[in-house]
């Protein structure tokens, strides 16, 4: 049999398999993370507790924005991590998403409040403008600009993979 054909038969799958070894070892993008930058949408909503009006211009400097709701089970799971962020002095702003005011306040008194400020978005209009698909989701905002977005439960490993590199790069929270 022609040596060329033999070589072809064996080298074709080898190259395919090699390709997969390379692809497999590549650092994959973390599913759920998104780094497209966009401006914080213009909004005019009430504070959860005091019903004071909060505008987009009230969010200054660098902070974390967390979408949560009292009906959201995963929010309970990530809650301790948000508390720890708060302890480290990182400002966390909550957007209470499609929730009843009383339920949300009860929830916070039960589990603790990691948020500096809570925007009551009971229709989900602000969340819609921010591209939220469900709770929980977490954003990193710097001077009125969203710079990182993660869909799903946030924890130490996600923080280190998704947010820490950007925080490092832009020198935030110093």
């Amino acid at each position, binding site marked *: 049999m022609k040596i060329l054909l033999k070589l072809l*038969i064996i080298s074709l*799958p080898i190259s*395919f398999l090699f390709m*997969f*070894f390379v*692809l*497999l070892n*590549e650092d994959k993008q973390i599913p759920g993370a998104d780094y497209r930058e966009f401006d914080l949408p213009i909004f005019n909503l009430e504070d959860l507790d005091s019903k004071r009006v909060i505008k987009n211009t009230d969010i200054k400097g660098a902070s974390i924005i967390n979408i949560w709701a009292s009906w959201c*089970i995963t929010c309970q799971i990530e809650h301790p991590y948000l508390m720890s962020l708060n302890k480290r002095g990182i400002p966390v702003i909550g957007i209470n998403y499609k929730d009843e005011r009383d339920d949300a306040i009860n929830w916070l008194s039960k589990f603790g409040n990691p948020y500096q400020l809570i925007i009551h978005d009971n229709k989900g209009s602000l969340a819609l403008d921010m591209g939220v698909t469900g709770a929980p989701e977490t954003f990193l905002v710097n001077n009125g600009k969203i710079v990182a977005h993660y869909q799903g439960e946030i924890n130490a490993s996600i923080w280190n993979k998704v947010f820490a590199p950007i925080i490092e790069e832009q020198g935030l929270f110093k």
Partner: protein
Amino acid sequence: MIVEISHFLAIISTALFFLAGLFALTIKNTFYTTNLISKTFSHAFLFFSASFFIYIYLAITDDFSVQYIANHSNSALPIFYKISSIWSAHEGSMFLWIFFLALWGFIFNIFIKNTEILKPKTIGIISLVIVGFLLFLLITSNPFVTILPIAPVNGADINPVLQDPALAIHPPTLYLGYVGFVIPFACSMAFLINNDASVKWESLVRKWSVMAWIFLTIGITLGSWWAYYELGWGGYWFWDPVENVALMPWLAATAFLHSLSVSIKSSHLRTWTILLSISVFSLSLFGAFIVRSGIIDSVHSFANDPQRGLYLLAFISAIILISLSLFISRFSLTRNHRSIKTLSKESFISINNIFFVTLIFSIMLGVTYPLIYEYFYDQKISVGAPFYNAIFIPIVILASIFLFFSIESKWSRSLDLKIFINPIFISLFLSFVATLIVFINLEKINIFVLLSIFTGLLIIFRYLIEIWSSFVYKKYLNPFSAIAHFALGLLLVSISLNSLLSSERALNIKINEYEEYKDLNIYFRDLNLVKGPNYDSVKANFVVEDQNGKSFNLYPEKRRYSRRGQITTETAIYITPFRDIYLTIGDQLEDGSWIVNIQINFLIRWIWFSAFLMAFAGVVLISSKRKV
């Protein structure tokens, strides 16, 4: 702890399978060693199936000290779903995969006599493949891990979209198909090792391969059907990467069966047959790799773990490289010095092989190209339906035209190609008229769709004539081939008409309002909150009236499952022989109206019916008394 017994039995069986493989491939095979190998394999299977059934028992009795069961089952589930929760995630489904692999080997071991010259080596190769997977299970994805000392009171529940009868059956059927191709693969390898061209391995594996092909066909069809009504995807095929990795082995298997029949009849195409037997099995394993390595994101992908991916890839590489080297070193075995006659049945089937391989390569390209592109350019692209349609439609049309003419062809004899012989002429005429009727009655025209309708009809009419003459003139007809190809024609026509006629629209509709779509009058009667056993649901009631004044109720739902907080859409489908009316309910808008998606899907049932008919053709072949 009962789970430890199950774990221990699995380890013992690994050692026994390894012994069977070692004996078979190192000791010179005599009647006695064959007996020994066969017995060792059976005992290994006995231990392994004991392990598997103990595991099922643990799932039924809600043993939540087993981590996997605690994570994927729940005491409130009906017993049926407690069992199917085993294959709802990676570890358990791998367990099932290996059980089926061993089961095929075991049945082969029982049915094939010890005097069969290829038997010991075949059993040996199957054993080694099992050992490879068992090590994968025990090392990287152990389902026997326990949560001790304190077991949870209840389990985390099975994923709600998996709580469906079709889905409980879909993975096992598909797995039975995938791993069933271990038999032709192992047999062809045994043939190469045995190094004797006169041994007919092809006739040995014919029925086994058809059986695996039936399972694969049914498994894929069930998946397509399930995605339609449960996931609310509203179609039958989406060129999702995981659908593609299931389609590749199916295409390879179909080509393999064709090529196999030639090799059995006339010892031609043996090279093709062996290469295809390797391809089918490697592509099945490749599917497992794609799904379980986390290299792509899809509804089907399991939790991402690079170590698993690496192991599987290394294992697949070993299998492919060893089998191909073996093939190359024994190439002379497969040579046939007589050449194939032009326009004989053999020649048509070898052309068919080329068509199928082209399709497989195109899918492979479509699956891998986005990965390569992302690697080099750091950008996500998606290869979707337009790419596959552009490649599949012309090739399938061309292949069908070849099929149409091949019906006339004979084994080892050239075909006298006369267009004006009756059956060809009649079917050409009938198809032309039928396509013309379709053409005149439709507003939308697409030349490719019309062409596929035409070729589909050609095949249908041609086989109808064949079936007629087999009844009236007692002309010989291969029922397997006739049913399978008739189903292909039906599939082509249904798919084409479906793409031509089906339509959908999103409606904004308030309660107590009417809306019109095509010939349908839709009335939103009511909306209720319903409490299910483990979910809360918003259930809408629509009254739909068609132009004949016939009205029916549809109840689409949105459910939130309490345990996982997951939201699922339950579709409401009204089925008639020729079309489905398909409703899903979306979000409520600010003004109180609801987004409701309505689809009219024509002939979609016929698509699945055609696929099942193909599988039925396989059943006909298996139950036939014919030797090959």
